[in-house]
């Protein structure tokens, strides 16, 4: 479980996030909406542990461990992983090497994994060097597939992805988050759902991802403040009809 309590974050001396409370239970996926510059990426980077995002108040608890001040790699070891919107390029490190790094001690069939996101032809390229927007998304998903974390943070995973690949991206995320599972002879749908453990937090602008991932909750971040609703589709509808400001006002009123 991820539990964030009264979190306050500064970047370069500027307060970006205020009084953030958030709880993601095992098996749950939340959608994070919010206008440009509202602090969505900052929230994800803070959860991942980027030190420039300075926590000035509150705490982050993951799997019962207070991770508020843990270094990035220790959070990764605990099971947090992120698909970045704009990851850096790493010259001289091939994508297939990167996938192995993500897999750590686990045995992975790199080419097999890559095929699932239609990325087998990129394995010999340097990580992110010259990748298009959509290629970066698929590279990030491939790395997450190898890493297989328990809490997955997706920063606008569908932006820049062409129509051909959007379903692929959506379905891959759904599978990563165990949202795609079907009942089996032995287990009922309810049982399968109960046994889900993966947690997700997905930033989206367009809401396309909702067509593939059955999310449990929607959240709106506005000017560094979080408000939430139970239904991500409802939020999306509200935002597209009335804009973020109205939407947030209605959320605040109902809280």
């Amino acid at each position, binding site marked *: 479980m991820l539990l964030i309590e009264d979190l306050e974050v500064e970047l370069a001396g500027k307060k970006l996030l205020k009084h953030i409370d958030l709880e993601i239970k095992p098996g749950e996926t939340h959608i994070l909406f919010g206008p440009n510059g509202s602090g969505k990426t900052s929230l994800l980077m803070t959860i*991942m*542990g*980027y*030190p420039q995002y300075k926590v000035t108040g509150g705490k982050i608890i993951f799997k019962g461990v207070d991770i508020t001040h843990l*270094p*990035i*790699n220790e*959070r*990764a*070891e605990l099971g947090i*992983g*992120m698909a*970045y919107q704009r*990851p*850096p390029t*790493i*010259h*001289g*490190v091939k994508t297939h090497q*990167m996938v192995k*790094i*993500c897999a*750590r001690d686990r045995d992975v069939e790199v080419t097999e994994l890559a095929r699932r996101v239609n990325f087998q032809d990129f394995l010999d390229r*340097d990580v992110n060097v010259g990748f298009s927007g959509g290629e970066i998304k698929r590279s990030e998903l491939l*790395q997450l597939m190898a*890493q297989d974390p328990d809490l997955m943070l997706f920063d606008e995973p569908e932006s820049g992805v062409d129509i051909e690949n959007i379903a692929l991206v959506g379905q891959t995320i759904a599978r990563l988050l165990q949202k795609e599972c079907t009942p089996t002879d032995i287990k009922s749908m309810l049982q399968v759902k109960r046994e889900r453990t993966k947690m997700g937090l997905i930033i989206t602008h367009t809401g396309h991802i909702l067509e593939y991932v059955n999310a449990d909750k929607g959240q709106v971040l506005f000017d560094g403040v979080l408000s939430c609703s139970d239904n991500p589709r409802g939020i999306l509808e509200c935002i597209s009809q009335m804009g973020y400001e109205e939407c947030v006002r209605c959320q605040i009123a109902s809280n």
Partner: protein
Amino acid sequence: MPNREQLRERALKAVNKPAALGADIDLAQFDLSPVERRPMDKEELLSLPPIEKQRLMMAGIDVTESERSGTYIQMDTSVVRCGTKQEGIEVIPIRQALEKYDWIWDYYWKLVAVDADKYTAAVELNLHDGYVIRALPGAKSVYPVQACLYIDKPNLQQNVHNIIIAEEDSELHIITGCSTSPHTTRGAHLGISEFFVKKNAKLSFTMIHNWAEDMVVRPRSVARVEEGGLFLNNYICMKPVRTLQLYPTTHLVGENAVARYYSIIVGSPGSEYDVGGRVHLKEVGTRAEIVARTISNGGKIIARGHLIGEVPDIKAHLECKGLILNGGIIHAIPELEGRVDGVEMSHEAAVGKIAAEEIAYLMSRGLSEDEATATIVRGFLSVDIPGLPPQLKAEIDRAVEQSDKTVM
């Protein structure tokens, strides 16, 4: 031989002439006297003490000789092993060649000037030995030829002259390693190399330097590439050295000739490296690329590059990237000199540090900060060198892997 006497005369006039670049070295402090050594057979080579074998291996030498077309090993001033396994590829000690073959005079001191500086002069006045490696017309080396210049005697000044000839349509790959024995840290190595790449020939030359803390190193090399020829020149130096200065120059004299240089240098504390590459593009359609990756780990590195476009329709690029990791200096000096309309020349130089963002990215994939740094450094040093045989790529990778330990 009148030729040799003229050379001596010119050399004598230059014995005190400082080089254009690099610290001026007083050569009187070193010992020039020859060290006699018996030739070694394969068994003896294989039964060298492990620590010596390790030094040879780190300089790219395969003591089993299994994946090598030929071998030349010089210890101090004497040739201890010289021969080839492939027809069409010749490996001959240069002193023997000078005595036996007239053709050597078409090459000897034809590209490097004997009176260029005190180091070229010193080599001619007291030549110890060196190798002549030649691929006959149309011959293609199956495996690389390996050459090693080894210094065992403390305080020796090793004077070497090498000539490499790739005849028309031939393909020759050479790996040459320079090293000192574990107990020798002080000495000087002066090495002349002249490369002749003839019409449509392909020559790759990979040099791994594995010197020691108090070594003075002054190689002098010039290459001449004819029409359709390719000269691939790789240089790797990961180990300390007192002072090293080299500026290999290539003349592309035939249409569509190509020169590509790749160097990887890790500079240790107390060491000074002044390294560069210069290519004259003298015919239409010639191309040149110079790529340098340098890491200062407390040492001082000057990374030079000079491309000279003398005719139209040439293309040349220079890329010089440096990382300062643990102090030290990296001074990149890229130079482009276009002398006519219609040249296409560019360069890219950067000196900096490892981006924190890249380290964080790798940490979020589970690597510790040190592992992430090592991964980025290894990536930085791993340049793709098209056209290099797998054995040589493996040797370069091994040298770079070794450096992880020195860098971290």
